[in-house]
């Protein structure tokens, strides 16, 4: 399967990664603000984990939904350098997506990964959910792994890079 088209066959859930031109009104406006979006392209409703929490790509599976594969021009993978405190997702983190509906969140990628200012990177978001709350047993909660298309990103040279 091509990295540019990683739609899940069983219910056509798609993960989309876009660069935000206007960063959210947070204390630190610098960085690389991206939006991770889940889109139900299928014809049936599907339940998804809308928490979309970011954590280390090797952290326990139930303690993250999103991580990124970020590579420079030489193929070197950017390191995840943040430390995240998070627990299991809760029932209220799950919502039903009707056909054509989306859910997403904004993420400053540079807060989590070691990126060099002025360097260009290819970034792909990864969504994983294998958790189904006991209250939703029997409900079509989407489980599995999705990879977004690749997006070019760069940290502006006047933005302080992570040390």
């Amino acid at each position: 399967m091509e990295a540019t088209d990683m739609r899940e066959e069983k219910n056509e859930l798609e993960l989309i990664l876009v660069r935000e031109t206007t960063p959210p009104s947070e204390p630190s406006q610098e960085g690389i603000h991206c939006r991770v979006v889940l889109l139900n392209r299928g014809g049936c409703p599907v339940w998804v984990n809308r928490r979309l929490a970011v954590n280390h790509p090797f952290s326990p599976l139930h303690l993250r939904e999103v991580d990124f594969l970020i590579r420079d021009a030489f193929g070197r993978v950017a390191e995840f350098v943040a430390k995240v405190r998070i627990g299991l997702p809760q029932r209220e983190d799950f919502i039903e997506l009707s056909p054509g509906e989306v859910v997403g969140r904004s993420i400053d990628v540079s807060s989590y990964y070691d990126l060099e200012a002025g360097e260009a990177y290819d970034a792909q978001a990864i969504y994983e959910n294998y958790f189904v709350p006991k209250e939703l047993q029997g409900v079509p909660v989407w489980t599995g792994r999705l990879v977004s298309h690749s997006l070019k990103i760069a940290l502006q040279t006047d933005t302080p890079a992570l040390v």
Partner: protein
Amino acid sequence: VLYSSALREEGYITRNRQVRIGSRAFRSAGWLASTIAHEVEVHVNIHAITGRWYTDPEGSALQEVEAYDYEIQNAQRFGLSSAEVTELRNRRVEHYNNLPHDYQAKADTGIYTL
């Protein structure tokens, strides 16, 4: 330490010691205090300031075990409920189970260095 309303995580810290706390940390006063201690008293004061900032899978897991051990040891200080302490123990287990056996043995004796 900054509050971020958009944060889906309870808290996180970058290598350059920027701590963000999300609304999920505001479950109770004790839980908030414990979350801040996790980030500041462990990840900043013990890891970042001393330069012991592990980013590999084992090191990251080991330092999360250390942070949760610290929270559990300070549960009375933060006024955590028994349910909250149980949750901390469960999270510790999640990270502990990600460790190789030799690092599990080190963590069991309170050694959190690679």
